[in-house]
């Protein structure tokens, strides 16, 4: 990463040092307290967005980790006499372990996304609160920390907490910047837009979600530990109230949950405004206002303040177009040795319907095999089995010497299987360039994010999309989106590509250019299996044709042979009537 790229981090460090210097110089206790709260909220909101903002798994249980941290510190200092500072890393680790534990169970269940994940995390918070309330950890009366010695880093007690809070905020925001610019961040963004496709492009979705959740929980835990000393009297009611979960969501959404600085901006705005309403009935009004803002932001400004401002700024000063002087020839494709894809006796049923019956076929390197058959014959199911999205009931799929079945889809992608979808499924919030960069990063090539972007540009040039590199997918027409699918599949350095009706919806000129592209890909030694209804194209492109009907292979051979086979004619046109 260039020095210019690191500027935000530097700026963050400078700001941090500046605030620290302020405290050393001597701030009135009121300001130390006020700023500490803002730092605390910045850390909480930013950490919340690691999983919930970047990957889109909105958690309503951030308060549970915060509370776990608070009570870890409270219990360890009062019951076991552990020095306060030592409890902080413990609080973080415990909370992280809690997050990882919950994630390990919940993330494996596919349907627990979206609102169900939100409900589940809300429930976890309540469960934790009840447990704490009823065991010796709290037991009811609350925990007093006033007797716990606080190391004096500065003149005043609030000074220490101020510095600790500042340090946590700087580290967390810095971590956010690092994550967003790393493989982890790219993977999380991909998960946000389309988790299944991300997995198919090689993103290890389960691990990444766990890491993000654990990191997020850990920071909240540390923040809680510090806060325990700040309030010095910890009760279940206050700790596990709805305040933390509500406010972190609002702050992140307001500022921009996907941006590394968004939650911090949102936290600053909200925390400062809330300070205006202190005590009594005004606090009530404050809460109502916060909630109203949340509603308005969700309805009207769903991306958040920071992205909206950035967009406006970009319109004012358009960045110079990225000079994409790339080679017109195709970049290197396969890094691993070319291999034959083979399906051996694959069976797969859904409920009572047998979708695949003992399908066997093979595609050699540099061969194009056309897969045809009437509606419902099992073509897409076969593609889904090969790419690892479904496991077969019987049979196996191999690529060269590696067995693909029994592996999670992201490993299958890493081994060199690429696919396109019948209806293009680009990552909606990522630019065209980043869409392809995801595949380059997580596919068989395994590039660093910087290398990946360079490679992505080459693939965009190859497919003729270089001028659209900074556009978002919704701005592309169908033809361009299909080619984006193709570029993305290619960027994963596949040894075999599965094309699912890549030509449907294109006009004849676009079809011709797509066919040329596919032939160029074949020339690179990639094995190609393509599903198509446009029979004329199948005949023109394929070296061999396999015909499926009701899950079975009914014909295989050269295109002319296969399409002329009696069984095939019968299936397509119906049994000829006896005249």
């Amino acid at each position, binding site marked *: 990463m260039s020095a210019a790229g690191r500027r935000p981090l530097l700026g963050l460090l400078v700001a941090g040092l500046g605030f620290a210097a302020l405290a050393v110089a001597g701030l009135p206790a009121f300001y130390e307290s006020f700023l500490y709260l803002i730092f605390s909220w910045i850390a909480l909101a930013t950490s919340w967005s690691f999983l919930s903002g970047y990957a889109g798994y909105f958690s309503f249980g951030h308060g549970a980790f915060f509370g776990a941290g608070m009570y870890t510190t409270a219990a360890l200092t009062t019951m076991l006499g552990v020095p306060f500072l030592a409890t902080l890393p413990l609080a973080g680790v415990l909370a992280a372990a809690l997050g990882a534990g919950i994630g390990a169970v919940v993330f494996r269940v596919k349907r627990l996304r979206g609102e169900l994940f939100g409900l589940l995390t809300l429930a976890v918070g309540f469960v934790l609160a009840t447990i704490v309330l009823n065991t010796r950890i709290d037991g009811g009366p609350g925990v007093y920390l006033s007797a716990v010695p606080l190391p004096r880093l500065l003149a005043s007690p609030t000074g220490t907490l101020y510095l600790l809070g500042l340090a946590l905020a700087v580290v967390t925001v810095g971590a956010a910047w690092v994550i967003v610019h790393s493989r982890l961040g790219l993977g999380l963004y991909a998960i946000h837009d389309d988790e299944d496709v991300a997995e198919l492009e090689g993103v290890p979705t389960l691990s990444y979600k766990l890491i993000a959740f654990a990191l997020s929980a850990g920071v909240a835990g540390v923040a809680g530990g510090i806060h325990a000393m700040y309030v010095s009297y910890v009760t279940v009611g206050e700790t596990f109230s709805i305040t933390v979960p509500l406010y972190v969501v609002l702050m992140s959404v307001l500022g921009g949950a996907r941006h590394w600085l968004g939650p911090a901006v949102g936290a600053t705005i909200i925390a400062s405004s809330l300070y205006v309403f202190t005590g009594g009935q005004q606090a009530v009004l404050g809460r109502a206002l916060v909630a109203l803002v949340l509603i308005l932001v969700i309805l009207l400004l769903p991306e958040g303040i920071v992205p909206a401002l950035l967009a406006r700024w970009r319109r004012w000063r358009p960045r110079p177009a990225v000079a994409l002087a790339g080679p017109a020839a195709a970049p290197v494709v396969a890094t691993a040795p070319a291999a034959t894809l083979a399906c051996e006796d694959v069976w797969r049923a859904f409920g009572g319907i047998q979708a695949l019956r003992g399908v066997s076929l093979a595609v050699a390197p540099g061969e194009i095999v056309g897969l045809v058959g009437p509606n419902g014959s099992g073509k897409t199911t076969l593609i889904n089995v090969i790419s690892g999205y479904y496991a077969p009931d019987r049979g196996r799929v191999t690529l060269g010497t590696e067995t693909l079945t029994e592996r999670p889809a992201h490993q299958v992608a890493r081994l060199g299987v690429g696919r396109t979808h019948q209806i293009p499924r680009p990552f909606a919030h990522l630019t065209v360039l980043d869409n392809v960069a995801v595949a380059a990063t997580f596919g068989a090539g395994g590039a660093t994010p910087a290398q990946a972007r360079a490679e992505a540009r080459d693939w965009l040039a190859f497919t003729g999309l270089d001028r659209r590199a900074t556009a978002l997918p919704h701005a592309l027409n*169908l033809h361009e989106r299909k080619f984006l699918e193709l570029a993305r599949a290619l960027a994963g350095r596949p040894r075999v590509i599965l094309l699912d009706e890549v030509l*449907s919806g294109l006009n004849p000129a676009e079809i011709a250019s797509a066919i040329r592209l596919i032939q160029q890909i074949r020339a690179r030694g990639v094995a190609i299996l393509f599903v198509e209804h446009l*029979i004329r194209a199948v005949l023109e492109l394929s070296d061999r044709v396999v015909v499926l009907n009701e899950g079975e292979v009914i014909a295989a051979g050269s295109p002319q042979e296969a399409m002329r086979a009696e069984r095939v004619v019968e299936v397509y046109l119906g049994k000829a009537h006896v005249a």
Partner: protein
Amino acid sequence: MLLDVRGLAIAYGDAPAVWDATLAVGAGEVVSVIGPNGAGKSTLVNTIAGLQRARAGALRFDGADLGAVPAHLVCRQGIALVPEGRRLFTRMSVEENLEMGCYRGEARRARADSLARVYALFPILRERRRQLAGSLSGGQQQMVAIGRALMARPRLLLLDEPSLGLAPTVVDQMFEIIRAIHAEGVAILLVEQNVVRALDIAARAYVLEEGRVVADGPPATLRQQSRIREAYLGLRDGDIHP
């Protein structure tokens, strides 16, 4: 002409599915639309049924402009749909599915009579009237789908790929029933991949390929034409001998 479609253009977002489709169905006529997968047949039928809006062109039913009618009022005009893949309300019973067919006012009044006729046409459904629709076999589900549409007392019945996924003997049954429905004076627009059956039953047919009507006319004429073989199998005339 009961149904009059002219120059219809339909798209999914910006992906065009049908360009410039023109066809007509007369009262009491059986008309087939054939063509390979992805040709746009279902899209066309769904648009006539009101599930989708056309981008351009005219759609008139018995003189009335259907383009302006909201989706849930199309049925009232006298059009009923048997969708591709049946699309039954699987969590409701057979009889409830049939009753949904006569949801609209007039048809509701004739409920008892319509139900009797549907059960006469499909005796097995009477046996299974309380069973959940999702638990029936493919053929039986198709019967429910057709019955549901008949309950609406339509003047035009839209049938989208009724033979899909069914065994040949069941398909034979299905087409017998379609003939019986036709005999009662209902106009039928049949979309079918199965060319032979589609041409057997129709008075006229249209061939749809890549979103365009490429041929039309009485079955006898179409059978001679090479366009169909080309469209489905990509082979020039003379390459195959059925």
